[in-house]
């Protein structure tokens, strides 16, 4: 092929003239010297994998004389089938953006500000090392804070990996508890399979080619927008499902693309998802739909824990926002009933209707499944072995009580959806077992995160939408015959999968993680609780975070109540930012900047069903490096025993032998060594170098027939002779296998960790979560959380509604658009041309009430911008050992249950004028609800601009709420379902809006330098 086929390519290799000079950070000219000698007219293609979002679609990059000139989809990818979305298609503009961070920089002026000086990687790493060593010697290792989140293309686990190596400190990302972790952690503990987020985990079954039959027949798209979050992968997939006759229900406040093609659209009021779920359960129980699922009429009885008995003696503590809910607690343990049961063979119990007695629950097998006749509802008198008698509900009866008030008239009132539409949706959902619910990020973004995750997974359990053909909750894929395997080059932290030989961190250091003991779900990703971290930064209690290493997108656009962080920055000794471009966080907070790579420069082995893709370093610019090198070089700077900057842990983490775990590789000293390691993770043992991988990947490691034909549906009733190996759940939570020679079915493995005789049911009654809150999931027993993790979903009114609803009448939600991922690409000329400013969707009724017409600029304020809801002290007085409150009472000192003084009134005053958006007056949103997506304005980082305006002008995250209520399981704060007021306004000055405004950001192609730490 020839480059001249493109009529007029902006990527043509004409010399770039004139300095960039727009931004302090980008002041160096884009033309960088290179030793690379290119053959004239060298044009070749590199088959790689996108990372403009988390979908990783296959891409073919055309490279001409070292420069990437064209991107198109790679049809070998069975998920994207060669399609490419606007985000991926913008990869070249992102790669050659004139404002790339090109070299390490150090701040030379005041904060906030934008004056920088180029330094070497060595100086940057040593500066960070010096601050870490000083901190260690003066106030201890726990002062380290590592963060991520907001987009980019990092190694997901880099921050906890570095923190674990260091030995103490905190990790957070604004996502995590507010985005995916609640579903990712909770749903497998309920359904025994995995989460059903089509945006994150794939829901592979939905991608099954039609010729294999058993396609998805009913698909509930709840709080997720596949058409717009990943158009080329999940959007394409759902479009094909619909084409193949799949019926869809969309639960979304917005009339999205998927909603406009759905059989039923439920325009739910933000924050009311749990009420809707309880309503579905109420209807399903009342109409006995759980035993009418075609072909799976006995699933609920045979395979769920709903017949198990609940222990009425358990005085479960209730969440402060819902203290009037039913008080059912943990499931009754068999050791309380039977003399021959103790901790070594602990189990659950049920009442057998045929035997007429309370019975220890057992794992079903072909020789005993006829003997299991559990009572599903009602109560049972149970004589305990101490001689007393208690009256126990079945877990299903407890559910019936929990949803008793949620008749569909009530639910229609709470959710704003029509009763008949809700019934239509439930009937459709229950019309086939071949389908299920994909729960999206919507519910993770408010404190119902755990409750909704339990609710959605429990609904799928009750109605047999599990592990059957067509179910999003499934285990898909057989083995190939080529000797190749699936792959992924995620690098794990120590202690994540098994332990390391070297002990990097103590149990005490784990307990010290801010907010962890109270919110133990955060342990799923080894993270801390963001508001607890913020309070510790501001008060110094229970200890002072001092060195902050951040390696991702714009925190000011991603953190809830973003302005509450302004006063936190001066409290740190050093703040580090690694990213591809400067962001608001860089100018507000950073002291040191590391230049990291765009996805076209990175390496990653990426599985896509039966194909392994390889993200390859297509080119490498300036002194940028994969973010893994930033962490590695900081560690390396402290690894020499003869240096003043020596730390014994940092020496160990540079050494594979000392670490002593194949799951936890040491840091790499050159980028080539890292690339080779990635190449070795590709699933092909014969490939040991990236050079080989350039040709060897992508590879189809199993034929379609092997892969799809090898899927075991209904695998829970696969005969499993004695091994007891069961469902894919967190290994720590899996009960010991009943390896006593009994022939059983595989079943599900969702029992709490103390259950040794696992009956292998899926667990809609989330005894697993309750147990987690009391004991944790570490290798040691953790102190119990003050508030129990309730085993069933519950609904509560969003706090903004009850506290500020009169003055701030509109309830705001967020949601994806096809142009951006998290905080990314707001500096991308073609995408900003398409979407130059955030839209505020508002109903015609509300618009007319506030005098707004379509296209007007509007001003939006919330209790946070108006100083009414200020972040408060929640850490003074917390235990220094466990970082926990003594109780819910203020007498124990300020905690999240009894916040103390206001801490961030000054910072929040920065946004007292509210923010701005363009009104889209549309019927596609309910009266009373408004929608706006995250935004920020990189144009204010150009020379001569006020950088602060980059995050205070159009950034809805200054409206959101980090001030509590935090849910017990994850400490999730409120990003959706906050309340706002809206008024007509003028277009804010200084923003770029007209298409030609974005001209300074058009790409400036530059040479392949190999990047930093390139040695060949």
């Amino acid at each position, binding site marked *: 092929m020839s480059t001249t086929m493109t009529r007029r390519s902006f990527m043509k290799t004409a010399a770039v003239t004139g300095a960039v000079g727009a931004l302090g950070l980008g002041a160096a000219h884009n033309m960088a010297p290179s030793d690379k000698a290119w053959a004239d007219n060298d044009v070749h293609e590199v088959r790689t994998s996108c990372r403009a979002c988390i979908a990783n679609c296959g891409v073919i990059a055309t490279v001409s004389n070292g420069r990437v000139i064209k991107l198109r989809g790679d049809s070998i990818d069975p998920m994207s089938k060669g399609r490419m979305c606007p985000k991926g*298609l913008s990869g070249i503009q992102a790669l050659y953006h004139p404002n790339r961070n090109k070299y390490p920089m150090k701040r030379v002026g005041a904060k906030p500000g934008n004056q920088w000086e180029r330094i070497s990687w060595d100086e940057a790493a040593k500066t960070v090392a010096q601050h870490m060593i000083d901190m260690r010697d003066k106030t201890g290792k726990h002062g380290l804070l590592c963060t991520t989140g907001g987009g980019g293309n990092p190694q997901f686990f880099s921050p906890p990996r570095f923190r674990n190596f260091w030995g103490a400190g905190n990790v957070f990302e604004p996502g995590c508890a507010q985005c995916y972790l609640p579903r990712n952690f909770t749903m497998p503990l309920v359904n025994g399979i995995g989460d059903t987020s089509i945006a994150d985990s794939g829901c592979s079954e939905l991608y099954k080619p039609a010729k294999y039959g058993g396609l998805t027949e009913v698909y509930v798209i709840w709080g997720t927008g596949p058409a717009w979050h990943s158009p080329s992968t999940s959007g394409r997939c759902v479009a094909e499902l619909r084409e193949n006759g799949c019926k869809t229900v969309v639960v979304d406040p917005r009339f999205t693309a998927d909603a406009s093609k759905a059989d039923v659209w439920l325009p739910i009021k933000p924050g009311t998802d749990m009420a809707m779920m309880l309503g579905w359960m109420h209807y399903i129980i009342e109409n006995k739909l759980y035993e009418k699922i075609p072909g799976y009429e006995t699933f609920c009885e045979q395979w769920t824990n709903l017949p198990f008995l609940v222990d009425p003696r358990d005085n479960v503590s209730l969440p402060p926002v819902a203290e009037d809910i039913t008080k059912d607690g943990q499931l009754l343990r068999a050791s309380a009933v039977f003399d021959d049961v103790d901790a070594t063979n602990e189990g659950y119990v049920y009442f057998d209707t045929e035997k007429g007695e309370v019975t220890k629950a057992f794992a079903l097998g072909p020789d005993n499944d006829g003997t299991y006749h559990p009572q599903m509802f009602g109560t049972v008198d149970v004589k305990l072995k101490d001689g007393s008698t208690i009256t126990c509900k079945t877990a299903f009866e407890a559910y019936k009580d929990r949803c008793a008030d949620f008749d569909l008239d009530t639910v229609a009132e709470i959710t704003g959806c029509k009763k008949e539409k809700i019934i239509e949706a439930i009937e459709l959902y229950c019309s086939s077992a071949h389908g299920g619910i994909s729960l999206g990020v919507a519910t993770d973004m408010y404190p119902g995160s755990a409750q909704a995750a339990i609710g959605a997974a429990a609904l799928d359990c009750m109605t047999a939408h599990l592990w059957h053909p067509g179910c999003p909750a499934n285990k898909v894929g057989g083995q190939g015959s080529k000797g190749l395997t699936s792959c992924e080059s995620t690098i794990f932290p120590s202690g994540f999968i098994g332990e390391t030989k070297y002990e990097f961190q103590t149990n005490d250091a784990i307990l010290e993680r801010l907010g962890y003991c109270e919110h133990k779900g955060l342990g799923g990703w080894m993270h801390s609780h963001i508001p607890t971290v913020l309070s510790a930064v501001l008060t110094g209690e229970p200890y002072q975070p001092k060195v902050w290493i951040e390696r991702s997108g714009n925190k000011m656009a991603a953190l809830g109540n973003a302005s509450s962080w302004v006063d936190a920055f001066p409290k740190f000794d050093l703040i580090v930012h690694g990213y591809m471009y400067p962001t608001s966080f860089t100018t507000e907070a950073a002291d040191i900047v590391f230049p990291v790579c765009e996805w076209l420069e990175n390496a990653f082995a990426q599985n896509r069903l039966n194909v392994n893709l390889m993200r390859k370093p297509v080119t490498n610019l300036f002194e940028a490096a994969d973010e893994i090198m930033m962490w590695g070089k900081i560690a390396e700077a402290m690894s020499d025993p003869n240096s003043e900057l020596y730390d014994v842990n940092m020496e160990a983490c540079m050494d594979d032998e000392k670490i002593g775990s194949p799951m936890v590789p040491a840091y790499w000293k050159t980028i080539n060594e890292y690339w080779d390691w990635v190449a070795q993770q590709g699933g092909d043992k014969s490939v040991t170098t990236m050079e080989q991988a350039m040709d060897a990947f992508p590879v189809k490691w199993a034929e379609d027939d092997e892969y799809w034909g090898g899927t075991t549906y209904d695998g829970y009733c696969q005969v499993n002779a004695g091994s007891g190996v069961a469902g894919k759940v967190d290994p720590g939570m899996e009960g010991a296998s009943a390896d006593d020679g009994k022939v059983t079915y595989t079943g599900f493995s969702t029992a709490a960790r103390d259950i040794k005789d696992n009956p292998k049911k899926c667990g809609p009654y989330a005894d697993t979560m309750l147990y987690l809150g009391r004991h944790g999931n570490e290798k040691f027993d953790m102190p119990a959380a003050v508030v129990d993790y309730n085993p069933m979903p519950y609904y509560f009114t969003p706090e903004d509604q009850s506290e500020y609803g009169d003055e701030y009448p509109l309830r705001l939600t967020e949601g994806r658009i096809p142009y951006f991922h998290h905080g990314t690409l707001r500096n991308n000329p073609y995408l900003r041309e398409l979407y130059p400013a955030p839209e505020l969707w508002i109903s015609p009724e509300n618009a007319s009430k506030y005098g707004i017409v379509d296209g007007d600029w509007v001003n939006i304020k919330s209790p946070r911008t108006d100083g009414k809801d200020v972040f408060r002290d929640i850490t003074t007085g917390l235990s220094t050992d466990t970082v926990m409150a003594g109780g819910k009472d203020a007498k124990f000192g300020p905690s999240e249950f009894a916040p103390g003084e206001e801490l961030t009134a000054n910072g929040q005053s920065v946004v007292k004028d509210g923010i701005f958006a363009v009104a889209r007056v549309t019927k596609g949103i309910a009266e009373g609800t408004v929608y706006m997506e995250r935004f920020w304005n990189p144009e204010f980082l150009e020379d001569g601009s006020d950088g602060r305006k980059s995050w205070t002008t159009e950034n809805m995250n200054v409206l959101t709420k980090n001030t509590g209520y935090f849910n017990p399981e994850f400490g999730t704060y409120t990003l959706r379902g906050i309340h706002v007021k809206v008024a007509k306004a003028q277009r804010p000055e200084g923003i770029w809006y007209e298409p030609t405004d974005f001209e300074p950001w058009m790409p400036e192609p530059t040479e392949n330098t190999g990047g930093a730490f390139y040695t060949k």
Partner: protein
Amino acid sequence: MSRNCLVVDLDKCIGCHACEVACKNENGIALGEYWNRVLQIGPHGTFPDLEQYWLPVQCQQCEDAPCVHVCPTGASYRDADGKVLVDKEKCIGCKYCMMACPYGVRSWNAKEKAVEKCTLCGQLTSAGQEPACVAACCANARFYGDLDDPNSDVSKAVAAADPASLHTLHDAGNKPLTRYILSDKIATWHDVDAIKPASDAQDAAWFAKEA
């Protein structure tokens, strides 16, 4: 002569705008200029019983093309293969064709002082590849080919559709070739008869899209 054109299945189109970005990348189109735009039609109806669809609009390859008729220099012409194209060497920038085009799909190239529009990515199709917008289309909703060839992707898509679901943009006798597939199950077809060229619009392109 062939009848080469694009066919778009609006039942499938998910409004992701990949076709717009792919077009701009492939053809190096300047900011503020567009050969292909995706209009959002709707929502119409009474909440919550609404209808909405997305309408990608580019040169419709009219069989009786007004742009060719009004061009004083022959810059707008029909090639031997039947495709309506622009020879920019001959364009004098009078913009008559932009006024004559009922669909606003001709774009003024401010730098080159010439009118241009969708070329059906001849540089790609002549090499056996699909037009950029078709290749990128995330919902597999866009097709390219010759309506006179029953084996072409466009003919197959048209043949597979219910005749009641086949539409064209408002036809004032100019006979647009592009067929849109939209069934009543998704939405009622709206006859959009006046689409302003985005590059001449007062508002930002993004606003001009609401039709």
